[in-house]
């Protein structure tokens, strides 16, 4: 199950699969816009996951997606998201996992 930060500010946003994040902090430390930080909550495995602390700074550059060793996070620009939604396949592409 993939979840998004819903607030629409800035040029892009991140998408996060909470349950596969292992809290390595690669994305937080190397975000060029410094817009990520650790959550206060834990995910089901007991790791703190990243949250978008300053959504207005996120450019959707997807460097977090390139760094993430667990394939948990990726960034996308709003205009690409709109494009994808318009050309979207009806069925969800990521199957839900328990």
């Amino acid at each position, binding site marked *: 199950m*993939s*979840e*998004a930060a819903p607030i629409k500010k800035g040029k892009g946003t991140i998408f996060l699969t909470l349950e596969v994040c*292992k809290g*390595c902090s*690669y994305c937080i430390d190397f975000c060029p816009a410094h817009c990520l930080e650790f959550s206060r909550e834990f995910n089901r495995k007991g790791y703190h996951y990243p949250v978008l602390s300053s959504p207005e700074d996120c450019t959707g550059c997807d460097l977090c997606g*390139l760094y993430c*060793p*667990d394939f948990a996070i990726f960034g996308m620009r709003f205009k690409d998201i709109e494009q994808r939604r318009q050309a979207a396949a009806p069925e969800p592409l*990521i199957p839900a996992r328990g």
Partner: protein
Amino acid sequence: MSATELPVCEIENPVMPYLRQERLPHIWCPGCGIGTTVNCFTRALTDSGMDLDRVAIVSGIGCTGRVAGYMNLDSFHTTHGRAIPFATGLRLANPDLAKVVVYSGDGDLSAIGGNHLIHAARRNMDLMVVCVNNFTYGMTGGQVAPTTPIGATQTTMPYGNFENPFNLPFLADACGAVYVARWTVYHVKQLAKAMLEGLKKKGFVFIEAMAPCPTLYSRRNRLGDGVDQLKYYKEKSKVVNGADTKEVGLTFQGDITVGKFVDRDRPTWLEAMNEHYTHHFGDRYTPYGGSHAQD
């Protein structure tokens, strides 16, 4: 912000089509850099525009050896150190494959499979070898590897390592590889570009990707977490493209020279064989794998 408040997103992670999703989450430790190199590899595959049915990935045993099991390509997980011989067979039996990629760790490629590495480079077999170098044997418990720098503590070297380590780019260069590069997990964009160039290049391509091993190498040497190693890479690495590979050896927590060291052209093994026998036998010889003049 709890998980239930967030809307379900219909947009898929761009990496996912390249992965066998039923196998995720993977077994790599938190802070391990191997997943990042996989990201770079998928990025390179996307950018290359290759037909994925014609790309094969082979790996040996070890943490990095698991990559073949996670990639949604034709893949084979070989016995320890024998990734390159298997890939050689694959390449020669099916010359129509666009690229055969060997994805393995430093112990698998340079210790157990060291002989295969040097001979595949000598023959200029048309392979792309990605060596994820974490300076230790991660899966078996942190034994000293041929790449462990002098002074680093390991399970089998509790008072520090005294053996001279391999300088892998120099080894590959001396044996005749046509493309040699080294990047770290910090240099994701450059690593993805090097892999893209490697996928497009004909001949033996050797790419060393330095990755942190937080559970064994970093912990035994008190170097902190995976992200601390990435900060060290960021601080101490210097990009010198075309550097003399003799000078790029690694020391314990010392300076790192990264970059594209070698990019030259030599006939591959198949090209050399076809040319040789055509020269000898003329029209009586039918060149092998002639249809593979694309990409």
